[in-house]
């Protein structure tokens, strides 16, 4: 069972829901795919061990063989190679590693080298039996999707995998949410929250993934989000009230199910609802 926790905008409580759900269930995997700002472990405090680097290839040009024909620069769609009158320049950060340049080079002047753009770490908690995988994109690196894809190779389908997805609706979100069994969209009851929820709903609908909504900070704004869900027949899985105690626990990095055990059963109930929906195919 693969469940993605996503939201149209950041800061709605995606990580809170992901972490609390994992703790409430136990025996689960948690994958922090918000690789630009991985936050899950701030709430878990697991000891992390590095698993691997995320490598991406880029071309290296042998000046002695290069005849400055310029074909590599012509095929490169990402402006990662510039053919100048006297040399060829490579900009590794722009390179997507497609291999096009080495294919077209008529003089065999291009070989591929690998560089790291991020890493994957793993942490385990024995008492809750949670396995955390965290991906981190290196500072000043633009491309998050390769880190997310590599992270997802660690998904173990014999258990429950909870995916904390990055915010927004662009490519890193698709990389996180595609191929999930269910998507939980976290929002807050404000005009901004509603605006971003509508965008997120468009994403999951287009991907054909069943989904439901968690309203965080319930009571803080208006009922626009609830009305929208009602009109669109979108299930509201849970409402987390606007509560200063929850906000303070959050600020300290304490998952609130630990201090408020009654929430543990609410998260487990939500999980049961999700399973029911996935097995019945309702909500697509």
């Amino acid at each position, binding site marked *: 069972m693969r469940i993605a926790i996503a939201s149209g905008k950041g800061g709605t409580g995606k990580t809170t829901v992901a972490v609390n759900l994992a703790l409430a269930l136990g025996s689960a995997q948690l994958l922090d795919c918000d690789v*630009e700002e991985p936050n899950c472990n701030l709430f878990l405090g697991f000891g992390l061990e590095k698993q691997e680097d995320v490598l991406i290839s880029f071309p290296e040009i042998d000046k002695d063989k290069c005849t400055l024909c310029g074909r590599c620069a012509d095929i490169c769609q990402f402006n990662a190679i510039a053919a100048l009158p006297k040399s060829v320049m490579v900009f590794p950060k722009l390179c997507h590693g497609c291999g096009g340049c080495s294919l077209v080079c008529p003089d065999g002047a291009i070989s591929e080298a690998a560089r790291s753009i991020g890493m994957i770490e793993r942490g385990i908690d024995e008492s809750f039996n949670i396995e955390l995988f965290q991906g981190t994109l290196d500072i000043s690196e633009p491309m998050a999707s390769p880190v997310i894809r590599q992270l997802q190779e660690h998904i173990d389908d014999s258990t429950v995998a909870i995916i904390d997805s990055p915010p927004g609706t662009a490519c890193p*979100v698709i990389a996180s949410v595609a191929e999930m069994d269910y998507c939980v969209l976290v929002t807050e009851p404000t005009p901004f929250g509603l605006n971003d929820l509508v965008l997120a709903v468009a994403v999951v609908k287009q991907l054909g993934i069943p989904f439901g909504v968690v309203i965080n900070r319930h009571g803080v704004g208006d009922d626009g989000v609830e009305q929208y869900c009602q009109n669109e027949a979108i299930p509201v899985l849970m409402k987390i009230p606007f509560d200063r105690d929850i906000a303070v626990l959050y*600020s300290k990095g304490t998952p609130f199910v630990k201090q408020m055990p009654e929430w543990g059963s609410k998260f487990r109930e939500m999980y049961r609802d999700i399973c029911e929906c996935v097995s019945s195919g309702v909500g697509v």
Partner: protein
Amino acid sequence: MVKQITIISGKGGTGKTTITSSFAALADNAVIADCDVDAADMHLILQPDTFETHDFYGLKLAHINKDLCTGCDTCVLNCRFDAILESHIVDPYRCEGCGVCEYVCPETAIVMKEKKAGEYYCSHTRFGPLVHAKLGIGEEASGKLVSNVRQRASEIAESSGKGLIIIDGPPGTGCSVIAAMTGTDLVLVVTEPTVSGIHDLDRVLQVARHFRIPVAVCINKCDLNPEMSQLIFDHCAENGVNVVGRIPYNRMVIDAMLEGKTIVENPDNELSGEIGSMWSVLLSMLGDNNG
């Protein structure tokens, strides 16, 4: 020279757009650029009246002509992004538009086609011109769209004699953030006193340092956890980063949002003064950066 200030937050939900829209109201000679292109919210407050719409083309997408394709699999084997399915159909979400398949196909069955990946708009608002955008679902190249929005904002600033561009930046540290930050005169990071706030602040400060852009920090909802606020303040001081504002939590922020107004448009709002003085500090920082 037109000055540019970019407001970012690292993590979302810190109140960045609320603060940016207040700056838009306070500035009297600015163009506003909403570069949070995959979750643009500023229009909800600024209620733009759009007078110009541009199509945005991102990367191209491979198309396979079934009539010419012999099923030789050369494209499948050469696509590094596993974007060509066994049935010789291109998965539009996985295709990065590199053009390798088009090059290797022996039957010239593949063509790369332009694909509209979003739109960007120029609008009038009650605070001046706004350039904003909408990125299509799951599109790449959000960095490129950010660059387009900034480019159009610069042109408008030049042609209408505006002295400042206020840029609302996206969350994260990846391509769109880098595109929203590079070449600006000042970055304001809006953070909040939570463990994730500090963590994400630290990462965006590193990005700013990497690109050598001057930064200032605003701690929003500072009373939510005063010790944590102090920690952020000390951390910034140690790193020579100016904390230009400490804004307490106030219910009026949401009330203003519900009314579609900026905070500073309500003179009774206790936060107006705080935001106003933060804006003056930022303006003087921009003035000092003349180089």
